[in-house]
């Protein structure tokens, strides 16, 4: 999965907000709100095309969680982003 380049993500208050820029802002109205983990994964997927497994590995390298928890988090966030139609 790789995130559409036409998004920008920023920390707003305690959470993260991603919104479309340029041409995408004309067709995608709204925002994606993410927690710390979501924003971490978002940034990885914005840089390059990642599989869920690569994302789980990256999460495990960064946070002290079990593989099962990490896999669940990754799957949930990826599904949420799929529904928002923000992958290339």
């Amino acid at each position, binding site marked *: 999965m790789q995130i559409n380049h036409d998004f920008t993500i*920023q920390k*707003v*208050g305690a959470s993260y*907000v991603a*919104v479309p*820029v*340029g041409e995408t*802002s004309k067709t995608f109205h709204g925002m994606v709100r993410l927690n710390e983990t979501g924003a971490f994964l978002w940034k990885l997927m914005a840089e390059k095309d990642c599989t869920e497994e690569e994302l789980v590995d990256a999460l495990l390298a960064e946070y002290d969680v079990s593989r099962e928890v990490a896999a669940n988090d990754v799957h949930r966030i990826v599904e949420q982003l799929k529904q928002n139609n923000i992958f290339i």
Partner: protein
Amino acid sequence: MFVIELAGVRIRIENRYPFIERQCRDFMCEGEDAAFAVSVTNDEIVEEQKHGEFSDGYCESICLYRHICEELPSYNVFLMHSSVVEVDGYAYAFTAKSGVGKSTHTALWLKNIPNARVLNGDKPLYRLESDGSLTAFGTPWNGKENWGENISAPLAAICFIERGLENRITPATEDDVIGRLMHQLYLRGSRQSVTQQLMLMDALVRAVPYYVLECNISDEAALLAWNTMRKS
């Protein structure tokens, strides 16, 4: 062509129709130097006319403000769709979904609160100051009631208005504030501009207290909001 000053930023308006000149007359300033210039193409005016039966001059004005609001974040200034009332030197902002009754509630403030006057009824600008506070500024774009003046005041509080059978006001949580603000900010333009607007939004959520007001159309609704939001 003429120059206006909005929220302390000098902007050159390169217009084709006279409509905007009349609209901006209270904001015009001397000289030709400006931070940036804005103009509108014929295609943009044609596109704007698809939204309704409006004159070329009116459509040009709408498009010019859109361009202005895409440039202003670089100067720590942003648009928030809201109605701002100034009372005794402080600005109180109301925002709501379209048609909920921002103007009605604003009118109730004017009727019930001594010294209240409308800073801008629809599209004011806000500037982030170096101490993290916000200042609200009047603009020539002030909604169909044409309520507004070329004045500014430090922002005291922001209130989200909803219709209710009874009047009730509660503090809004940050999570709630972010969701509600997204609909009222103008998050368009280049990557740099939108990123800057989100950084301003981060400052905005911290700058002032937020409330949700459920209200009916009554004098009590305005007094409840005023007594809760007022800066002592």
